[in-house]
């Protein structure tokens, strides 16, 4: 049951991101709800849940929009798992901590993406990317985390209820 809930949620969030995303863009920058959801869920749940959700999210994005499959799978997977491992001994209901995690995750994701897809192709100039893409998205993601945190919290509560044990 828990798996079905999370798989359905990730599909819905992916579709929201890809269809409604372009209506909330500011100066060509779209917030990454998928990354925010992955990080929030991994922060509240276990490392394994973060890893599984990250892999599903990355696979979805790679399947639909990637030139090849693997880049987002790797980055989302690592981000989900690492967030889960780092937040093991932390208090799980603090929104400020999740904002901190999403900031770090966005920086890591974008730098990783730059290294895998741009730097290895021979384009070494990163300054333009940092100012035009990475920093604005980091700020935007941190803002978007506030609603996403509560969605992730609600889902976390549903998956921990008695209903889950019955089915």
């Amino acid at each position: 049951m828990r798996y079905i809930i999370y798989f359905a949620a990730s599909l819905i969030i992916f579709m929201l991101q890809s269809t409604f995303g372009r209506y909330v863009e500011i100066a060509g920058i779209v917030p990454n709800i998928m990354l925010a959801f992955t990080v929030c869920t991994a922060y509240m749940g276990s490392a394994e849940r973060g890893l599984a959700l990250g892999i599903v999210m990355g696979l979805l994005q790679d399947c639909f929009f990637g030139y090849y499959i693997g880049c987002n799978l790797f980055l989302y997977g690592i981000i989900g798992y690492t967030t889960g491992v780092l937040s093991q001994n932390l208090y799980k209901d603090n929104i400020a901590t999740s904002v901190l995690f999403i900031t770090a995750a966005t920086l890591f994701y974008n730098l990783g993406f730059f290294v895998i897809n741009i730097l290895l192709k021979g384009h070494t100039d990163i300054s333009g990317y940092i100012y035009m893409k990475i920093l604005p998205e980091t700020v935007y993601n941190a803002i978007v985390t506030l609603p996403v945190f509560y969605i992730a919290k609600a889902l976390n509560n549903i998956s921990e209820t008695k209903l889950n044990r019955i089915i």
Partner: protein
Amino acid sequence: MKNRYKFIVIALAVVSLGCAGFSYKRNMPTPVETALGYVTAPIQGLSVKIIDKLGSFTGYFRDKGELNAEKERLKEELLIARAEINRLKLIEDENAQLDALLKIQNSYSDYSTIGAKVIAKDPGNWFSTFIIDKGTNYGLKKNMAVMTADGLVGKIRECGYNYSKVVSIIDDTDAVSAQSVRTNSIGYVTADFSEEAQCKMRYSENASDILAGDEIVTSHISEIYPPGISIGHVKRLTTDDKTSMKYAIIEPSADFSKLDYVLVITKEPGYEFIEATTESGENK
């Protein structure tokens, strides 16, 4: 715990690399992708429809005066466009006569197009890939050119049954063979991330007579894109600091931030090229 972390990261890297190697330059989407796309494309189309309905609902209450002004403006534009069409018809007739005299194959033939709706866009901010709501069910194929009324948008990278993945010309993974209308100098257009949503054109040294304001169109040497589709206008010329190569910053004709409907040119890539060579062979 630490060993376990290392193990999982390494396993993830190996799996990703395997997937990348397997899927790199695939011609057809894998069955899993096709199935996923088959399910999600209608839902994405529906959500875009809902947004459109909401937009038209608010538009209903918009200022009447604004609409009237727009009506007048459009009437004027229609008149100008009609005059232009008449003029172009005359030129086309004249051109046909001259062509008949010269007995040359008309390489700028009409394109047959299919309209399609944009239903989803790449979640990330890096690349510019989007999905349209028609696929092999409408006869679309890989490498067909995609454009709007304003200019070139990109080409189809993958076709599913009821969706197609379009890679745009402002995407870093693709390049378009292009030429300047004024000077006929050939080059190629790729993405440029240093400025907002723009492309750049690199060209050979002898073609450095391109100036700001020149129109750039698709070139006749491309086998994917039909010749003569507008790509954009040269905004300014710059020089690469490291390689000291000149390149032109290009403002694309198509508005990539407001892509709703696109036109797909349903002509098989390379088809005209083959036909033209056999024709000329026969003529000899």
